[in-house]
């Protein structure tokens, strides 16, 4: 079952999606984003560290969020994106549009 949680920082808010950024979760996220924008949040970070799946509804939500924040001189960032989702976003030419970055590789261990 997909879910999300929100963290607020000095810079804005971070939405951490667990499971799937898909059609079932989109209405809840829309409401959460609307509330953030209405109280003046300038930066929204979608943290996809625990997200394994997206669909076109989820992608549409990211685009809508980006459009809305841009109108208010705000910014959307999408971070910790899984490799498969990153490849999809590359194919759809959305990487720079949505400020998408992948997951950092684990630091190599040193003996």
């Amino acid at each position: 079952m997909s879910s999300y949680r929100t963290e607020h920082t000095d810079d804005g808010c971070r939405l951490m999606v667990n499971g799937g950024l898909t059609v079932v979760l989109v209405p809840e996220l829309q409401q959460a984003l609307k509330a953030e924008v209405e109280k003046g949040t300038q930066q929204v970070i979608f943290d996809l560290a625990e997200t394994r799946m997206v669909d076109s509804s989820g992608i549409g939500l990211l685009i809508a969020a980006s459009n809305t924040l841009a109108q208010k001189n705000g910014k959307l960032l999408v971070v910790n994106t899984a490799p498969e989702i990153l490849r999809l976003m590359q194919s759809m030419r959305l990487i720079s549009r949505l400020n998408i970055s992948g997951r950092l590789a684990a630091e190599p261990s040193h003996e």
Partner: protein
Amino acid sequence: MTTSTEDVEAVHDRDSELCLTIPSRLAAIEPVCEQIRGLLGRRHLEDVEFAVEILARECLNNAILHGNRGVANARVNVGMRIGRKLICLRVTDQGPGFDWRRTIRHGLPADTAVEGRGLMVASIYARRIAFNRQGNQVTLWINTAKEGR
């Protein structure tokens, strides 16, 4: 409203084939995807799991939100067959269908458009996409070998 696994009726489930009938509710998509992942896992096709699952989700979303809209007690049929080189996925709704030719002619959505990317996603992962004449059934073929992208 949640959908229990009892609502997902498996017509038959063999090692290479899946055939399900589900209620036309978004909550019914997740159990279908679990079964798809299970079958792909049993066939050691984890490499194409993301591709097949996202395609199934797009087709099911469309069938439920658009295809069956307004049809009381509607169901959606989902079939998947794994061949040697191709996986065939078919989703059928009970609605009147849509003018898929017009949708294809319309082309890609604008960069800032929020909707209309389902076919774009499908074209990225499916080797071939076909609609029936009525427009209430879509069939996709996916390579079993993961393509470099």
